[in-house]
Structures are given as C-alpha cells and as structure tokens.
C-alpha cells in the first residue's frame, strides 16, 4: 500500500508545482504577435501584447509614479545567429492634477485622456525601430525575438520605498547595534531591491526577408 500512496503524493506535488508554474506564467505579460516590416530603410516591428498592466501597476501609475515599459529584442538569422540585440524603452506618466496620461516614446510625449488609452497604445506598439536595413546582409531570412517587461518602480522611486522601509524598521534601534550585530536593514534592502517588474517570455516573429536596398548613387 505504501508505494501507490507515495506515487500519488509525488504526482500531487508535481501537479501542484505545474499548476503554480502555469498560474505564474498566466500572470506574466505575453506578446501575442509580432509583425516585421520595413519603413524608411529601417526594419520596424509591430508588437501586440496582453496582460501588461496589473491592477497594482495601474494604481501605481494613477498615483503619479512613472512606470517603465522595456522591450528587449534580438535579431536572429535563419541559423539562429544573433545579428543585433537592443532595448527599446518607454515611460508612462500620469499628471495627477489634470488626470491625463503621457506615453514618452522616442523623446516624444503622447498625451492620453485615460489609462485605458495608454494601455491600448502600449499593447499595440507600431513601427518600433529595430535596425537599419543597411546593417543587414542581402537575401537573409531574419526573425526578431521580443520580450516585454513592465517596471512600475525603477530607480529613485524604488530607492525611495526601500529607504522608507529602512526608516520604519531601523528607526528604533541604535546605529551601532545595527552595524555591528546584524544589519537587518541591509538584508531587507538586498531582498526587496529585487525588481518588482514582470517580464514576458521571448516571442519570435515569423521569418522575414528584408527587401534588398538599392544601391545609393
């Protein structure tokens, strides 16, 4: 009787682990489609994604804190050789006083009346520049892999919150005690400084052959 019981227990644990992994994956942002095309002698992509903004992220943005959306890409050829890697970054801000949202992309600020509109704009990003066609070899099939990540707290905002926590935790004890015996603050800083962001899995675009650029005079 013991062996079937053990097998059942192992199976149950495996199922729970798989379910947890699946649940975590479901909670992550996802890129559902990537179209590659060319525009003005440049390789550009249209990226469609879902699940970028959780309720907590929306709350954070609505409170006036900026959120950063990062797109990581790598261009690979048919033999899976990496041709280029890059990062495309955007920032979402909310003007709390006027209740308007701004998407800062390529040094240009686009204003939106609601977060839903910003979200829609980010979830369908068009003409994201990747690389100039001149940098590509002729007659090569390429694919572009994309991953998208949303960081509601970056840089000084994160430092600020960690500092606040540090103040709350360490405020009561003497500095000497903290430094000499056990620096819990530092421990918390290290643990909580882990990125609060969420990143999607890599999504590979269909294979694409860029048009051969005509020789310039």
């Amino acid at each position, binding site marked *: 009787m013991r062996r079937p019981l053990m097998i059942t227990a192992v199976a149950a644990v495996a199922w729970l682990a798989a379910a947890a992994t699946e649940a975590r994956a479901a909670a992550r942002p996802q890129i559902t489609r990537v179209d590659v095309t060319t525009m003005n002698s440049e390789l550009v992509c249209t990226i469609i994604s879902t699940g970028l903004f959780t309720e*907590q992220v929306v*709350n*954070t943005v609505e*409170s*006036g804190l900026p959120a950063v959306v990062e797109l990581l890409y790598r261009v690979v050829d048919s033999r899976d050789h990496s041709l280029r890697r890059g990062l495309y970054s955007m920032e979402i801000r909310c003007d709390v006083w006027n*209740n308007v949202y701004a998407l800062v992309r390529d040094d240009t600020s686009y204003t939106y009346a609601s977060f839903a509109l910003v979200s829609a704009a980010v979830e369908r990003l068009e003409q994201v520049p990747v690389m100039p066609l001149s940098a590509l070899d002729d007659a090569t099939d390429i694919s572009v892999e994309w991953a998208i990540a949303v960081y*509601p707290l970056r840089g000084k905002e994160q430092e600020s919150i960690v500092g606040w926590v540090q103040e709350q935790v360490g405020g009561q004890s003497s500095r000497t005690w903290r430094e000499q015996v056990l620096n819990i603050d530092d*421990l*918390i800083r290290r*643990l909580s400084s882990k990125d609060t962001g969420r990143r999607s899995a890599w999504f590979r675009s269909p294979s694409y052959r860029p048009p051969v650029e005509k020789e310039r005079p």
Partner: protein
Amino acid sequence: MKSIRSRLVVMCLVVAALPAVPLALAVQSLLDKTFNVGLNETMEEALKSGVAMSRDAWDEQCARFAGDVRALLVDLGGALPDSGRVALAMKSRASLGSTLHGFVLARATGAAGDTLDTPLLSFSANETYQRLTGNRSFITKPSGTGGDLRLFESTDRSLLLATWTPPAGNERLLLFSQTDPSFLRRAEDLIAARQLFATLQLTRAGLTRSFFYSFVVIYGACVVLALALSLLIAERIATPIRRLSAGAGMVAAGDWGYRLDIRGGGETGHLVDAFNDMVARLDDQRRRLVDMEKMAAWREVARHLAHEIKNPLLPIRLTIEELRDQYRGDDPAFRALLAESTRVVGEEVEQLQRLVRQFSEFAKMPELEVRAGSLDALAHDVAALYPQVTTTHAAADPLDRFPFDPEAMRRVLINLYDNAVAMMPAGGTVVRTSVQCADGQAVMRVGDNGPGIPPEHRARIFEPYFTTRREGTGLGLAMVKNAVLLHGGDIAVESTVGAGTTFIIRLPLAGPPPAPAAHREA
C-alpha cells in the same frame, strides 16, 4: 544514532527546529496583519478621494479664475482700457471675492509678439511679474478659451495666468491669480501619500517576503549556532564517556595502572575522579588479595613443614638419649663421644623444635580478636621494652577508640623493633611516630638509622623465609605483613642504603574487614 553524541545533536536540532513552523506561521500572519492595518481598501479609497478632491478644488479654482477674467474683460468692454480703468475694474471685482490678484500691462515685442517688454503698468504684481520673467515654466491650461484670451498655469501650480491681447495694438494684459500655498502643500502631501500607498501595495508581497526571509535567515543562523553548540557540548560530554568506556576496557584487560586524565568540572570531573578512585581501590584490594593468597599458600607450606619436621624430632631425641643411656661399655673415650653427640643432637633437635614452633605459629595465624583501644598506647608499652626506641610527635592520641587486635599488633611491633635492633648490631636509634590519621587511615611509622635495605631486597623482604641474617627464619616481616593485611591495612617500606629504613603501617579507621570464609577456614 546510538551514540550519545548523535542523540544529543539530534535532540538539540529537534528542540531548535520544532518551533520553526509555528513561528514561521506566526511571523507570516503578523506581517500580513501589519500590512493590512495600513494597506486596506478603506485607506486606498480615502487617499484616492483626497487626491480627487484636491483636483476638483484646483479645477474649480481654475474655472473661477477664467470666469473672473472673462467678467473683467466684459467690464472693460472688450477694448484695451487705460490702466486706471483696469485697476478700477479689478478693485470692484475684488470686493466680490475675485480670484484676480494682479495685472501687468506690457508691450509685446518680438517677431511672434510673445515677448513682453517693460511693463507699462502693473497692480499688485511686481513680484509675480518678476517670477513670471524668471525661469518659471508655464503650461497651457485647457480652458476652452481661444482667440486672444489664453489661460496658463505654472508647473508648480502656484500661479494662474491669463493673457489678453486686444484686437488692435501691440499691448497685452496679463492677469494673475496666486494659489493658496497651504492648499498646494496639503494636496502634494496627499499625492505623495497615495504614491507611497500604491508603491507599498505593489511591493507588499516582496516586502513580506523580505521580512520573512530575514526571519528565516536569522532563525537559520540560530539553528546553525544551536547545532554547533550542541556538537560542542555533545563532544564534551561524549569524550569523557568514551574514554571512560575505553578505560574500563583497559582495566578489565588487566591494566590496573590505567588512570583517566580528563580535566573537567561538574559531573564529568566527579565521574572521572570516581573512576580513578575506584580503579585505585580495586587495584589495592586486588594486590591485597594476591598478597593474602600468597600468604595463605606460605602458611600451608609452613604448616606442612612443621608437621613433617615435628613428628620425627621426638623419636630422634629419645633414640639418641636411649643410645646414650644403654651404653654399658668401659671405653671412656667412646662414652664421652656419645655424651657429646647426644648433647649436640639434643641441641639441634631443640633448635628444630623452635623452628617448628615458629612455623606453626606462622601457619596458624589465629582469627583477629578486635577490640577498641589505643594503638598508640599499645605501641608505647611495647616500645618501653626497647631502650633504643624513641617516639616522636607524642601528642594526644586522636584514636583512643580504634578497632584492632592488640595481640596481633603487639607481635607486629615486636617484630619490627626486633628487626630494627637486629639490623643495628653496633647500636642505633629506632624512631616511632605516634599514630596519625590521614585519608581515612591510621598511619604509624617505625624507622631506624641502620644500614638500610638494598633495592634488590626491598621487594622480597615480606616474603616468608627470605632473610639476610644467618640466624633469621625469614618469618618475622611475613607475619607482620600478614597481620596488617588481616586488619585490612597495608605496610610499605622506605629505605636508603646507609641511612636507614622506615616501615609505614596504614590501617583503615573503620577497623579490619570481615574475614572471608575461605580464610577463616584456612
């Protein structure tokens, strides 16, 4: 797992780790509750409402400013008035609670007409105008107002600005409204609080995890410390026990000289001391038993010899006397020879009978008749027979009710004194110390300043029939040792050749032990 060390370590680990689960649950629950105190929906709604109210208040202020500006322009009739009219109109509106706090009338210059020259006229706006021409940035306030009336707000919202350009001319009227700084500060505080709230909500899981990990790390460190301490303690407990066990094995294998050399206090120290003491006592008893068995064997030999020699002695004596008496011859020489031979044989027989008596006495060794008395007094009485004996430390006897056999101890002392006197034919001094108590024993020393005992003889002097004197039987010191052993004591000898010899008698204060049945029978 059977070793005491493993058990101790496992026990310590279990004790240290057992509270981990309930503590972890308690910490988790405490953290959740702590966060729930501040991070709940009510608080979130309150903060959102506060920010919304601030925004509404600001919008209302902007709307009032725009309304006041329009009303003023209506008052002015839509044409650039002289400054006196503007001031008058503003004063009249101020009495109605107007939001207009000042104006500047200036000439617009530049290609686009967006640069203001020195003000032609201003009212309560000098400071504002300075700020306006400083690095202050303005953003267009969406007011729905187009044409020549435009509304702006400073990026820090401390100032609302309206510009009106009349249809003709290049002058421009700027109207200002100062925002209440306390309103701005409170609103900014609200916004900051909401941002902190949102951030905490976002990082709540991470923070909880961080605190929890901190707890786990600290607890883990404590468990590791407990493990190290338990290992140390277990080692300190197990080592003496292991060595004790090994020592017991060595003793069982016959190494009676084995002693534990472990320094430690408390129970371990007591245990080690008790073990060493036990082995020492066992060794002592074993040696005594061996000595007694040897002595019993020697006594058996003595008894047998006495029996074998004693029986023919009387017939020999009678026969030789009969031979002497029955001679009827006339030869005087032969008669004389016979008489001399009879005398010599008689003397030798008598010598043998004396020897037999000594053998018999040694063989008999009657059971002790123990009585309580003063050993010191007995020694004093015996010493009185020997002028060579002097006593030192003649203090009051601490053992006047000491249990011993007076007759046996008298023989012991006589033998020792005899032996000492015999060893000093040219004279000397015998020194006896009074009886003293030490380590639960009565101790008495008898020493002389004779020639001493050579080292090669010291080990054998208590053996029966061992003597270095021609006339000695070798039974005196053997009888001494036998008597002392029967008392449960011991006798030792210290001797320096040319300086003298000292015998040390140690008797148990509790008195002689009960004689074993075998010995009684013997």
